[in-house]
């Protein structure tokens, strides 16, 4: 294999014989559109369709679409759903007052470590979760074990569904052009983090890029047709490579890189996702988080901006005032900013706006410490 020091940590190039990988309903479309397919958590997924940077820029300036059907849709049904999710999730589903509201949450272990991060939607007769592909099996095992304590809960894996995310300043307009007036009427009034059901489609104004847009959950059998209609409306396909640089610029965490079971939300920039009130909601991990909060978290997640040439990468060490202060959890080149950026977990004494260094192959390069995000709605926040 190529002598790559840091090949994308979860990706593996797929050999021609690699059809053991699972395929989404859009696999044939990816091939037809010239995707470079890689293994991602056991799925054959598009890394890019020619140029990762062009795809990134397209989402920032126009509209791009992502096949995220590898992520798992799990419906929580039954009388006990709300009580169950109140125990399972660190954010408070009680805040989803009406049908169609969505929230981001972590699912924690008893030590307060993050088992996964997810989006949960309130639907008419159920809650719907979208969880990561790489954590799917352990999540479901954990969810079923936790449900053992609550009654009247049904956990349903929806492998009959696909997910297409359409993101960018022109995303919603182009979705209307592709999928019709009926959809427009039903979704025009959606605010960020709201969703609605239109026939067999479930459309949420959510995303993972820092741009406006929709995430569309739809029957697997309708995915190919919808993808083609979106392409005809001028929405370009975007691979996992650009998905990663877009989310990093938007200051959004990647599970397995920026947090995992050994790190709590408090040291992962996710304190805002913990639903502390009411005190009586004793969700899994709460005791550990309360103790950590009283003791004072020892670390924080910050943003870094490289001041010169080079690229920041995962696991590089951060040095502040000649002391080792922590490490980069996600680093990359930022196509929107034209320089390298990173998320890093560092000690609490590191101040926003201060100058630190990162050890890049033995050279200490200057970085500015910033508060993420780096880019929102196409504009630099630096």
């Amino acid at each position, binding site marked *: *294999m*190529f*002598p*790559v*020091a*840091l*090949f*994308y940590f979860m*990706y593996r*190039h*797929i*050999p*021609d*014989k*690699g059809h053991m990988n699972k395929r989404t309903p859009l696999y044939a479309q990816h091939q037809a559109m010239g995707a*470079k397919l890689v293994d991602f958590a056991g799925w054959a997924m598009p*890394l*890019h369709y020619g*140029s*990762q*940077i062009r795809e990134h820029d397209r989402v920032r300036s126009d509209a791009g679409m992502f096949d995220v059907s590898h992520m798992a849709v799990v419906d929580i049904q039954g009388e006990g759903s709300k009580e169950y999710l109140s125990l399972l999730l660190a954010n408070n589903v009680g805040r989803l007052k009406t049908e169609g509201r969505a929230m981001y949450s972590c699912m924690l272990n008893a030590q307060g470590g993050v088992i996964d991060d997810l989006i949960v939607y309130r639907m008419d007769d159920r809650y719907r979760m979208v969880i990561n592909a790489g954590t799917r099996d352990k999540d479901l095992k954990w969810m079923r074990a936790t449900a053992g304590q609550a009654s009247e809960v049904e956990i349903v894996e929806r492998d009959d569904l696909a997910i297409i995310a359409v993101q960018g300043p022109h995303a919603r307009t182009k979705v209307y052009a592709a999928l019709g007036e009926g959809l427009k009427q039903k979704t025009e009034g959606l605010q960020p983090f709201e969703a609605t059901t239109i026939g067999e489609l479930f459309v949420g104004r959510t995303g993972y890029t820092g741009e406006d847009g929709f995430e569309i959950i739809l029957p697997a059998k309708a995915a190919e047709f919808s993808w083609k209609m979106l392409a005809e409306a001028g929405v370009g396909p975007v691979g996992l*490579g650009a998905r990663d*640089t877009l989310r990093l610029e938007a200051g959004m965490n990647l599970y397995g890189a920026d947090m995992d079971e050994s790190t709590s939300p408090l040291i992962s920039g996710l304190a805002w996702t913990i639903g502390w009130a009411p005190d009586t909601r004793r969700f899994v991990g709460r005791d550990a988080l309360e103790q950590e909060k009283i003791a004072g978290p020892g670390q924080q997640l910050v943003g870094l901006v490289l001041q010169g*040439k*080079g*690229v920041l*990468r995962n696991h590089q060490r951060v040095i502040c005032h000649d002391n080792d202060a922590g490490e980069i959890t996600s680093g*990359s*080149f930022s*196509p929107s900013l034209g320089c390298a950026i990173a998320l890093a977990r560092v000690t609490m004494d590191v101040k926003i706006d201060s100058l630190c260094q990162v050890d890049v*192959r033995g050279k200490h390069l200057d970085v500015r410490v910033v508060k993420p995000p780096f880019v929102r709605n196409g504009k630099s926040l630096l």
Partner: protein
Amino acid sequence: MSHANNDLRYTRSHEWVIQISDGTVEVGITEHAQDLLGDMVYVDLPEVGDSLTVGKECAVVESVKAASDIFAPISGEVSEINEVLSETPEILNQDAQGEGWLFRMVPNDAAELESLLDADAYQALIASDAG
């Protein structure tokens, strides 16, 4: 103007080498390598005068997704580096086996070139390790 595959010698680590008219050799990464790495954003080259040892790391190329070490294909002294790559690393994607050359060097022993792979052997290599 890109070099033809048959005129180049190759390493197993995906560098190419060609002897140019003044007796120096030019070094770059292969078309296959640039295709695997994707959009290039940074190139860290050796300095003119650096003494390189065959098989040792001597440069780094970085795409958006990965950093990759470049290994000296033969031993010798760096005589020139491709300065334009510093501002426009994307040339590596456009013309890896031509305008995207990395550096030139004066070989200690030009016979070392003979030990490198020829085009057929290199093609066989990339066909066999497609994984």
